């Protein structure tokens, strides 16, 4: 049977659900209401309000990615050294939340962080002052880290388990101490996992509007919220598409950088 024939359903899928929407984004992004070509929708990013939202998005995504990396690496390292039956259970514990709707999980955080929420009730029980976390950038970072942590753990875990234990032994054998072994062997050999993890956390964090809407309140606008509002509230598809294209540039830069570093293709999505 012709192999090209087998790929036909996917080609249809890709055309209808990937190429056409992408083409529409480009079409709307580069035209105005009269249908004439314009770059205004793209250059609109330079307006102070949009720039502020973009800068905040990039900043919060960067911080969240960094925090995810700091939490995920030691965890993935411990996981990769576990043996036997316990390992499956612990890995399942980290993957399990991914099976639940992220909207639902973010709503749960809303309940916990609210002014009269679970956290503050517990604090008042302990006679501690309440914490104002909801509707701050901290709440958004918390939501991002919580939602995207598994996407950082898994590629790092994968790359760590692929390291031949003999290579680590060889480094010790050649006189390296524990710190040198980590810095010169384990860290570089897990680099591809780190790069994949960064991509898989940074990209969804940069584009999210659900987390910022639910945990950031209406005052904190990320670029994702701005684009969403252009589509749903202002009904200005032209501006929404133009801003989306700007965001795409950031995502493409991120992916190109990962593709350069991630030569092993550790769960790469490029």
């Amino acid at each position: 049977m012709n192999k090209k024939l087998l790929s036909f359903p996917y080609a249809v899928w890709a055309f209808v659900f990937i190429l056409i929407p992408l083409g529409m984004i480009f079409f709307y992004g580069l035209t105005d209401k009269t249908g004439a070509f314009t770059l205004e929708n793209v250059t609109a990013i330079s307006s102070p309000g949009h720039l502020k939202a973009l800068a905040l998005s990039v900043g919060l995504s960067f911080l969240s990615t960094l925090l995810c990396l700091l939490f995920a690496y030691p965890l993935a390292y411990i996981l990769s050294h576990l043996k036997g039956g316990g390992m499956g259970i612990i890995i399942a514990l980290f993957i399990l939340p991914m099976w639940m709707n992220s909207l639902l999980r973010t709503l749960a955080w809303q309940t916990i962080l609210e002014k009269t929420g679970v956290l503050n009730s517990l604090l008042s029980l302990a006679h501690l002052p309440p914490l104002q976390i909801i509707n701050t950038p901290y709440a958004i970072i918390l939501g991002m880290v919580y939602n995207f942590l598994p996407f950082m753990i898994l590629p790092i875990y994968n790359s760590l388990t692929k390291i031949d234990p003999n290579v680590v032994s060889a480094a010790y054998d050649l006189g390296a101490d524990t710190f040198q072994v980590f810095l010169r062997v384990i860290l570089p050999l897990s680099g591809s996992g780190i790069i994949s993890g960064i991509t898989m956390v940074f990209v969804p964090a940069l584009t999210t509007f659900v987390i910022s809407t639910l945990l950031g309140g209406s005052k904190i606008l990320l670029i994702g919220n701005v684009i969403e509002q252009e589509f749903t509230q202002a009904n200005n598809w032209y501006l929404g598409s133009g801003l989306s294209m700007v965001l795409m540039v950031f995502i493409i830069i991120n992916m190109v950088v990962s593709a350069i570093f991630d030569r092993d293709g550790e769960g790469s999505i490029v």
Partner: protein
Amino acid sequence: MEKELITLSHISKAFGAQPVLDDLTLHIRENEFVTLLGPSGCGKTTTLRILGGFETPDAGQVIFDGKDITNLPPNKRQLNTVFQKYALFTHLDVAENIAFGLKVKKKDNAYIQSKIDYALNLVGLKGFEHRMPDSLSGGQQQRIAIARAIVNEPKVLLLDEPLGALDLKLRQDMQYELIRLKNELGITFVYVTHDQEEALTMSDTIVVMNQGYIQQIGTPEDIYNEPVNAFVADFIGDSNIMDGIFVQDKLVEILGVKFNCVDMGFGKNKPVDVVIRPEDVELISLDKEGSASSEEGLTGVVTDVIFKGVHYEMCVMANGFEWIVHSTTMFPVDTKVKITVHPYNIQIMNKPESEDEEAVSIDE
């Protein structure tokens, strides 16, 4: 004789409930090529890992150059390991791999560069400095692994089945190369393998191990010609191993026929193991007219002939035992033959004094 460099003293090691080494004692001299030989699971690799510092023995001591190093971590030991499947750093090029040990010891760049040049020259891979390990063949990777170890000027090089992943021709080339390297470097090699031919080719001393015990220590010639028990005889080369009865000094009964031998002191009418190497069995055809007419002694029938290049390998059924015989003369299948063995080539061994013996006799 060179002075003693390493002593493994009464080493025991178990993984969980599984004992791997039991009260193992071994002396290794300076500039010696020692091979730990045995089937998988015999404890040879564990012994090497204890030497390298990757395992700590449950009991016993490792003495190196007069100092107790039993609990010294691997990075503090004056020995280097060449690992099975090379274990090269895939993120570093050849030069960086070789320089690894020197860099962590903070040697200066000029020294490191001279060492890289020296080592690449020694293993015949000059000009490979900036190749990545993945782009090298198995044999080349093995040479880099050796180069990476020797630039640290270890007193002992530990090699864990380093040729196991190479094809036959390359393996034979590397055997000669390892011998050359050892002679050039003038250091001690401790080599682990399950390949008896490799062991016989390269070693000064062979340590035959089985189930955590040393079975025999000796030169390749000793091990081959004078195996101390049936296990060693069976493991090293092909052998005919039979139950025999030591009738009296210089006389042993094999398969109901008495043979002259040279051994003495095994008692009278005592059950023993008898080992005869296939190349030591002589066949005389009884089919040809005018050939040795006497039908006395052990006679049998050729059941199988395989041409092996240098010699023929034949199976001869005689008194219920299938003999393996190597000979440059071919006897066709179904030839009736008389089996003779020179007394000097009959190796008599005491039966092991364990429950194994009973198990064997019940099986029969």
